């Protein structure tokens, strides 16, 4: 454990992973409670389009993933809240549409399959110092906004209409939340991968909710579950040469099963 932390690439992977664990589980609590879990999966697929475009045109895949994910999150929220479309239908359209687009772009290029694999499933070797800076800046902004509007987002998750009637700026906060989630997902693809980040957002709150506590302790437990999974998953990735995202998600699944068994109702 101590030995692997001597390597700079592992130090970067742990810093990035722990940052993502906190952000993903915190923001994930709100989408789980709003029955909007598929949003993370959809935006992860959309960010893959950004990665593919970045690799094809020689631009930063991370920046392109952030951009694609942000634009898609606004379009999804606009269609849901302004046009009143069913959220699961909108998400299904974006999920399959973006995957199709990513596959077409990848097949056009054909030569970056190895790089793409690390974006799909995460790789502890892939986190650069520049990535850490980008994650640090965007992650800090996302964290500050989540803490600032924590209680309002909780109220909206509980009862959107009553929150709006009580003077909470629901539309603005909904757009803010999906934007934060879009950025977190795009930032996570280095460590967890686009196909697996949804699990880091959804499984910790779902497992924590099983313990039947109030929202604040549930959120703290959710963050703790995500942190433990990232630490064990990254360590397993180093020791057994596994894709880091897959190792983290398998840890999450084990914790979820334990939570289910402990809290059988």
């Amino acid at each position: 454990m101590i030995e692997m932390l001597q390597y700079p690439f592992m130090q970067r992977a742990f810093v990035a992973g722990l940052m993502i664990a906190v952000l993903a589980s915190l923001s994930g609590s709100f989408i789980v409670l709003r029955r909007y879990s598929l949003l993370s999966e959809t935006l992860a697929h959309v960010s893959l389009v950004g990665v593919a475009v970045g690799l094809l045109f020689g631009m930063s895949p991370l920046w392109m993933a952030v951009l694609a994910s942000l634009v898609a999150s606004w379009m999804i929220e606009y269609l849901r809240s302004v046009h009143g479309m069913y959220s699961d239908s909108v998400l299904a359209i974006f999920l399959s549409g973006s995957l199709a687009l990513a596959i077409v772009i990848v097949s056009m290029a054909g030569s970056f399959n190895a790089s793409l694999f690390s974006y799909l499933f995460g790789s502890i070797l892939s986190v650069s110092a520049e990535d850490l800076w980008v994650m640090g800046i965007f992650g800090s902004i996302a964290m500050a906004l989540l803490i600032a509007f924590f209680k309002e987002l909780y109220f909206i998750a509980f009862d959107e209409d009553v929150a709006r009637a009580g003077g909470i700026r629901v539309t603005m906060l909904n757009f803010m939340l999906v934007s934060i989630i879009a950025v977190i997902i795009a930032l996570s693809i280095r460590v967890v991968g686009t196909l697996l980040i949804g699990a880091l957002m959804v499984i910790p709150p779902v497992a924590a909710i099983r313990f039947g506590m109030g929202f604040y302790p549930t959120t703290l437990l959710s963050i703790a579950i995500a942190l433990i999974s990232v630490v064990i998953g990254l360590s397993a990735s180093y020791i057994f040469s596994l894709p880091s995202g897959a190792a983290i998600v398998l840890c999450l699944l084990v914790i979820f099963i334990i939570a289910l068994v402990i809290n059988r109702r």
Partner: protein
Amino acid sequence: MKFSPSLFEVNNLNFERQGNLVLNGASFQILPGEYCAIIGPNGGGKTTLVRLLLGLEKPTSGEIKLFGIPQKRFRDWNRIGYVPQRSALVDSTFPATVREVVGMGRYALRGVFGFESAEDKSSISEAMELMGVSDLSDRLIGNLSGGQRQRVMIARALASDPDVLIVDEPNTGVDAQSQHRFYELLRTLNKTKKMSILFITHDIGVIAEDISRVLFVNQTLLVSQNPSEMIRCDEMSRLYGTPAHVVCHNH
């Protein structure tokens, strides 16, 4: 209670949904201290009228003033407590304690990064005490009975110390004893705390003795200053367009 000429002032309000007229030319005022019932058939526009008052729907045309201020410029939403339809039907797994739910009533007053002040704590405790849910403080909302949840939702609405309480058919999933307690409470809030109440109900008979006015909504709005006159069987039959029997009872 702050002085205001009228809590709600509505002039020639129209609302269409997907080309269908839901409300046509509604005009009325609600004055401080009033206890008004909104009645009418299903789909007649009762809930829509309340949602328009709360800014949850945008009117097609017409004017709404809240506490004398045009709705678009109104910011003191904490002065209006709202208990929506089916509020007692809560997702049983939602991670929220009774204390957390009641505390939501103060969120809009706390501002960004705002921590709970002594005033917040006092208002929350008072609302919980009034509704008799103090001993349920740490219980999960999903583990309560329908009647208990209903009291928690009203406590949340009261936590912001509102001048007016809007209650939309709140008795879905609530037993008869809890309903009786609920009507008693509304009477107390109106008589002793001088809180105005706007109450959407099908069960007009049970509050007939308490209410000062009836708003009958069926696309158009009919305001009666004489509730006992309006709830006569023949009058109700005429308004609903179907034979109606009104039973005045205590619960």
